[in-house]
């Protein structure tokens, strides 16, 4: 069947080969040499050690594949990527073969076609013909590639029929249909390498090979939704999205996630006025190709508990719907009636406040004569300036950058559990831990991080002991020798009784170590924010002055502030809530103003490393809800303090005046080297429900039941499809 075509004996490019091997003795860099080979008659140069499939891609020859994935280890088991290499007796799997200098490769010859057709025929022999009811339909690799390499008639005449495999229960997110599995093992490699769930694997051999957890167990990972993307067929599909939509019905909008402070790049897929799903967008500077399950599946929370119309609390303590002019007039009347002056007018910014609105609200409150710009930090900490200060940006930013984590050789986690606070960042640490000699130490509440670490203690005392060098052990030893040590302080530390001590201790340590932690090419002091709005909050100076801290407020404006402590709001204060969900903040309010959620406005978000990114509206807001900055701007007019901008460009000019980096979207400004004053348990106890959107989400509630409270009740009846009996 396989015949050697005449082209296989073409001469290789010898002259280029010799060039590639010439090496300058004076070059001491670790850069690998490049090699040159010929793919489909085109010469291409790739770094040494590349796989052949990478060379083919670089030459612009697409190679069909199922098991090979750019961000996973190479398995080489689907055999779809066969290519012809000159002087090789048979086709070569291009993912498992290294690119050799001078090789002559053909990707589009009759031999290659026939080989791939053979592979495809075997794959399809056990694949069910259920494309019309399969959720992968329309974006299925097997479907796509069978158009080109599939046979138009079957030679399959087994009496026993196709292979049948029982479905697995992987939890409330991943729906399995294991008959469709082609055993590419992408999910297994992802779970083992990236997510750190090492109990997903294969059992059996050959035709009996099965993917599963070995025992009845759910896939407990914050990144489990990514296996749905990875699966080239419909074996692993999305449970919340099951039978909801087809990809060609969806309108895609490229945006930014706000449910953690990482600023993962997402693509919001919508149909009509509904967000149907959220997909990752590749960006190697931020989230590579992964997003967390909360990012991916909290979108159904955008449909529930929404504020759709302005509300005014009546005399019987019940909300009455109102028009926008009435609601704004009620706020003006409330402000007059309380007689609030100066710092008695208070604004509290919450987790999901966008940068534009923060700037406009800060201008409004300042024009009313107040400096009382609080945030909804845990307990009373939001009412005072943060302990790390906001004057020096490197004091509250992730200075090493997210991609820079991979170049660290020792990481000290202080009061943070990155697995919950930034799940995708955690996978980077795991990646580095697997592929380099990285060592990790942790001070704070012990947590399962998916990589090994040395626990140095629970509290600030343990940190002090470690920093003073009194701890013996492997980590301490490696830390002392580390070329690129990295300290990662959780943002929970700024909301902790010992926060001031911890930040002070670390600041003194960083200063005392001189060039070791902070120098020209490496800034190893990082604060990991966990809330999307906080970096922008500090960047725009949205913090109270010292004088404002002790003032009792009479008029409070809650901007998306739902984590605020109800006890901190005086009973006689007039409270306005602006936001998109009727949660804790709205319950406290006298007037509610409906705003937009992050999928409904094109606004700026600053992530934990200070990277400002521009989101984009995918769907219109429900009911009478309006864009948030416009609401505050309209309110300023009613209150008689007009703000000097009328359109979005005006607002962004104002942002530029405050900090140019806010409107240099997608760019990252480096921070200064002066760590003026640096800042133990993580405050995030339930990863799946941290904000109004995820609290309103049914899927996140199911995840909480499955992975946090671990309720034994079956998910049957809750999910859209009952768990299928194991055949």
């Amino acid at each position, binding site marked *: 069947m396989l015949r050697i075509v005449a082209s296989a004996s073409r001469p290789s490019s010898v002259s280029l080969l010799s060039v590639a091997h010439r090496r300058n003795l004076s070059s001491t860099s670790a850069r690998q040499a490049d090699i040159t080979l010929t793919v489909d008659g085109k010469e291409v140069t*790739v770094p*040494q*050690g*590349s*796989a052949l499939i*990478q060379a083919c891609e670089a030459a612009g020859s*697409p190679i069909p*594949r199922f098991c090979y*994935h*750019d961000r996973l*280890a*190479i398995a080489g*088991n689907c055999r779809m990527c066969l290519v012809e290499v000159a002087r090789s007796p048979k086709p070569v799997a291009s*993912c*498992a*073969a*290294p690119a050799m200098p001078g090789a002559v490769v053909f990707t589009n010859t009759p031999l290659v076609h026939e080989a791939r057709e053979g592979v495809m025929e075997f794959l399809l022999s056990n694949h069910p013909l259920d494309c019309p009811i399969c959720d*992968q339909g329309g*974006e*299925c*690799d097997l479907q*796509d590639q069978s158009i080109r390499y599939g046979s138009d008639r079957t030679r399959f005449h087994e009496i026993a029929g196709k292979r049948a495999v029982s479905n697995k229960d992987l939890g409330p997110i991943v729906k399995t249909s294991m008959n469709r599995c082609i055993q590419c*093992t992408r999910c297994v490699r992802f779970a*083992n*390498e990236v997510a750190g769930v*090492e109990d997903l*694997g294969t059992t059996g051999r050959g035709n009996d090979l099965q993917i599963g957890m070995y025992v009845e167990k759910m896939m407990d990972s914050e990144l489990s939704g990514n296996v*749905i*993307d990875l699966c*080239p067929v419909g074996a692993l599909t999305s449970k919340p999205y099951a039978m909801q939509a087809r990809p060609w019905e969806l309108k*895609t909008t*490229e945006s930014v996630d706000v449910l953690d402070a990482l600023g993962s790049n997402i693509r919001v897929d919508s*149909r*009509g006025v509904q967000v149907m799903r959220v*997909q*990752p*967008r*590749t960006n*190697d500077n931020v989230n590579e*190709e992964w997003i967390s399950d909360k990012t991916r599946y909290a979108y159904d929370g955008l449909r529930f508990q929404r504020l759709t119309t302005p509300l005014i609390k009546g005399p019987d303590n019940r909300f009455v719907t109102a028009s926008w002019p009435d609601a704004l007039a009620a706020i003006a009347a409330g402000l007059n009636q309380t007689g609030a002056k100066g710092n008695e007018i208070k604004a509290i910014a919450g987790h999901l406040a966008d940068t534009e609105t923060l700037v406009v609200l800060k201008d409004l409150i300042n024009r009313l004569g107040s400096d009382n710009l609080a945030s909804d930090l845990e307990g009373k900490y939001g009412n005072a300036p943060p302990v790390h200060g906001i004057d020096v940006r490197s004091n509250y930013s992730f200075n090493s950058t997210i991609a820079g984590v991979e170049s660290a050789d020792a990481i000290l986690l202080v009061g943070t559990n990155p697995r919950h606070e930034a799940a995708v960042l955690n996978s980077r640490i795991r990646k580095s*831990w*697997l592929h380099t*000699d990285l060592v990790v130490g942790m001070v704070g509440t012990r947590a399962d991080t998916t*990589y*090994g670490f040395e626990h140095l203690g629970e509290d600030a005392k343990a940190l002090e002991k470690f920093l003073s060098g009194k701890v013996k052990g492997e980590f301490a030893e490696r830390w002392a020798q580390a070329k690129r040590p990295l300290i990662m302080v959780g943002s929970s530390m700024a909301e902790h009784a010992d926060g001031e001590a911890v930040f002070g201790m670390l600041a003194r340590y960083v200063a005392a170590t001189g060039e070791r932690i902070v120098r020209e090419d490496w800034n190893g002091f990082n604060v990991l924010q966990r809330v999307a709005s906080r970096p922008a909050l500090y960047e725009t100076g949205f913090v109270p002055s010292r004088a404002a801290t002790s003032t009792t407020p009479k008029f409070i404006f809650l901007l998306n502030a739902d984590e605020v402590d109800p006890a901190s709001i005086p009973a006689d204060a007039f409270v306005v809530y602006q936001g998109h969900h009727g949660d804790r903040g709205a319950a406290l309010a006298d007037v509610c103003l409906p705003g937009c959620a992050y999928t409904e406005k094109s606004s700026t978000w600053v992530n934990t490393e200070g990277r400002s990114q521009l989101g984009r*509206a*995918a769907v*219109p*807001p429900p009911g009478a809800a*309006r*864009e948030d900055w416009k609401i505050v701007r309209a309110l300023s007019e009613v209150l008689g303090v007009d703000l000097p901008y*009328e359109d979005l*460009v005006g607002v*962004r000019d104002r942002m*530029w005046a405050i900090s*140019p980096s806010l*409107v*240099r*979207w*997608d760019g990252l400004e480096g921070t200064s080297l002066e760590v003026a004053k640096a800042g133990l348990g993580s405050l995030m106890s339930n990863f799946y429900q941290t904000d109004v959107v995820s609290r309103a989400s049914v899927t996140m509630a199911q995840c909480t039941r499955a992975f946090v409270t671990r309720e034994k009740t079956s998910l049957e009846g809750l999910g859209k499809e009952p768990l299928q009996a194991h055949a």
Partner: protein
Amino acid sequence: MMLARRQLVPLVRRVAPSISSRSIASDAVSPAQSVAATTPTDVVPVAVTELLTAEVISGAPSELRHRAVRVYQPTRNTMQSGGAKGERWRIDFDILQGGGRWENPLMGYASSADYMQGARVTFKSQEDAINFAKQQGWDYYVQQPTVKRIPPKNYSDNYLYRPNKLRICKTK
């Protein structure tokens, strides 16, 4: 100062913000910026000093000139491994706030008052897309494509010996 600032802020905006103060002639003048063509384009570079934008004579509704378009390169669908159409650039409009879309109460169909909601134009290069937006007289924002860094990968990495404690049991 003002000029430098405009260059820093990537949102390109024309000078006249309100309709009343606009005159057609002044609006039609746009700075002649020659964009260096780095990728093969369909556009033959011509020294244009004065650009008569299409909106002047096209009869397009005046609301259109208050809306911004985004010029971007759509990222690859993570559900699929194919990279086709990945080099293309796209122009589409930001959605209309309020009234842009609603669910039809009778059938549940998606209705829209936004006549540009389905407009999506594809180009071979960024320069082509920008040129088109300029000719139409649209405000545009260019979203830069993200970087992709895939290190060299090798099958033999699966069998590398590491002297330290075993950190992962390779399985599949």
